[in-house]
């Protein structure tokens, strides 16, 4: 039972009211589409950084990063180092971001029309709309479970809390667009950063760094310290992360909108330099919470009681025990009861080479990874701090929903619906079309989160849906900006091949691993661009003409 009480609800409610008030305060300042989508290009360094980072940190970020830390130990930190390096490189070179900012565009696919053809813009827009919506679609699903554990509410009440969150985000996003977002994101960032620091100190106080190191050493069978030797990670995974984060920081619409909203290209670059430090923390800090949860429950667990006998019989006995009690123990937060059973099953499966038992144990460990951190927080945080943690989590979640609603709705309205209508739309119509898309997308997210079951770790699902369009988008934009021979045929080939490779992960019968699908997507996108452009060169607009 969590000690979540009236004081906690009051703290969280006040923070939510402050955000909504800030969002609606500037509603009358939105007069044009440029105000609505890129805040009249008046974003400064610090507010811009707060906006970018708060949009890219949601409850889901804490959940999947903690899960990754729980499963991979300190090896998971490598993704934080990759993000840090990518942001520093972008900030110091201005690679892609400076040229896109100077192009004066409002959505990423808009550039593709200028450089290649309107068909490429629509194709990219469709893939972004699908991938982005699917990506966002599991956020409420995972976040609801997290909130249920932290607050002690039952699932039906949490569903109402999530619906309320979506409506609040919808209201100020639909009304004030990016102008509202910049203001609310600042308030939200201050709340979420405060909560992040306090929760981290509480985790460290409850477990201690040496216990975390010991848990990784003893509980992960030799894994957890070297990402390059971890069978689930390895060099291929790190390479994929470098490419993916380069794409995420340059052409992911919600991030790119901050670049487009910056006062100038130099401010955009400085935002990335400052963001590098925060994105390192965005990965490493919640991963450390996941490791702390592993240490916390390991310290309280007893070895699994299994009758002596053949390994096969022991595995059957463990499977039966888990089938009976896993769900109820997890729902009651008794992670320390089931964790040793899962670990024992894993070891026996490894010793005997039983793939079926190994897979069963793996799935259960993944689930434990998702719920252990919130269960630990519910047990270690006192009343008051729980409210602060919830306020931070809700702020993080709201800013993400609002940012993503605006980003993907902008793409759907400006790059898919607008161009396919077949006639030039007026500014006011495009503004209202974008607002209508915000409402439609919110409805879709609410429904999708109710009907879909995530295959495998959430971290991988999120990255694969993103990679549906990330690889071809970055490839076509980099080629468009820096390679004069890039052609329309190359752009089409890149999108078709890159998206197809990513989809392979979502088809269970193909048994394509996540890193393989990711790297394949990058390889085929690049191949499609090169071969397509060489076989069917122009006549497209060369890179120099597509720039302002």
């Amino acid at each position: 039972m969590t000690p979540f009480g009236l004081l906690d609800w009051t703290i969280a409610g006040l923070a939510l009211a402050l955000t909504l008030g800030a969002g609606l305060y500037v509603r009358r300042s939105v007069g044009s589409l440029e105000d609505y989508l890129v805040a009249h290009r008046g974003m400064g360094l610090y507010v811009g950084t707060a906006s970018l980072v708060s949009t890219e940190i949601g409850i889901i970020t804490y959940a999947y990063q903690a899960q990754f830390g729980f499963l991979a130990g300190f090896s998971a930190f490598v993704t934080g180092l990759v993000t840090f390096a990518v942001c520093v490189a972008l900030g110091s070179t201005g690679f892609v971001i400076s040229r896109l900012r100077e192009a004066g565009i409002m959505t990423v696919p808009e550039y593709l029309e200028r450089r290649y053809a309107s068909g490429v813009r629509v194709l990219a827009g469709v893939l972004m709309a699908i991938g982005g919506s699917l990506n966002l679609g599991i956020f409420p699903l995972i976040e609801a479970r997290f909130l249920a554990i932290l607050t002690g509410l039952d699932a039906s009440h949490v569903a109402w809390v999530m619906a309320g969150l979506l409506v609040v985000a919808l209201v100020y996003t639909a009304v004030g667009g990016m102008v509202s977002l910049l203001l609310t994101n600042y308030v939200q960032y201050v709340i979420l950063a405060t909560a992040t620091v306090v929760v981290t100190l509480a985790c460290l106080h409850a477990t201690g760094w040496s216990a975390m190191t010991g848990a990784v050493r003893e509980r992960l069978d030799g894994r957890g310290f070297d990402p390059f030797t971890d069978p689930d990670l390895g060099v291929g995974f790190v390479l994929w992360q470098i490419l993916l984060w380069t794409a995420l920081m340059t052409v992911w619409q919600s991030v790119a909108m901050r670049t487009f909203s910056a006062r100038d290209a130099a401010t955009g670059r400085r935002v990335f330099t400052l963001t590098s430090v925060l994105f390192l923390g965005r990965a490493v800090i919640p991963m450390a919470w996941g490791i702390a949860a592993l240490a916390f429950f390991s310290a309280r667990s007893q070895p699994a009681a299994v009758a002596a006998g053949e390994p096969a019989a022991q595995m059957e006995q463990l499977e039966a025990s888990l089938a009976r009690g896993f769900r109820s123990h997890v729902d009651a937060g008794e992670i320390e009861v089931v964790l040793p059973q899962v670990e024992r099953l894993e070891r026996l499966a490894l010793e005997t080479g039983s793939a079926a038992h190994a897979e069963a144990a793996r799935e259960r460990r993944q689930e434990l990874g998702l719920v252990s951190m919130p269960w630990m927080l519910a047990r270690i945080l006192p009343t008051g701090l729980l409210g602060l943690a919830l306020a931070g989590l809700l702020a993080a979640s709201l800013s993400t929903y609002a940012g993503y609603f605006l980003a993907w709705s902008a793409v759907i309205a400006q790059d898919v619906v607008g161009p396919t209508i077949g006639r030039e739309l007026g500014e006011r119509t495009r503004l209202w079309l974008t607002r209508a898309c915000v409402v439609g997308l919110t409805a879709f997210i609410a429904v999708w989160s109710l009907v879909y079951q995530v295959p495998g770790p959430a971290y991988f699902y999120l990255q694969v849906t993103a990679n549906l369009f990330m690889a071809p988008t970055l490839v076509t934009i980099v080629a468009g900006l820096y390679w004069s021979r890039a052609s329309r045929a190359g752009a089409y080939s890149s999108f078709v091949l890159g998206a197809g490779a990513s989809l392979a992960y979502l088809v269970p019968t193909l048994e394509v691993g996540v890193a393989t699908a990711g790297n394949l997507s990058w390889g085929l996108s690049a191949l499609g661009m090169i071969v397509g452009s060489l076989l069917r060169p122009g006549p497209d607009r060369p890179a120099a003409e597509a720039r302002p």
Partner: protein
Amino acid sequence: MSALFWEAVFWSSFAGFTLVSLLIAVKGVGEIRQFLRELRSRDRG
């Protein structure tokens, strides 16, 4: 890669996150004020 290396990564990232967040909280107020002033003067204009 040793446990010591990851401990250094963690503390660096935690300290960096805290300091830059403080910087944003302090400097952001001025930027927000300027942003709102610009919006108001444009609305009046």
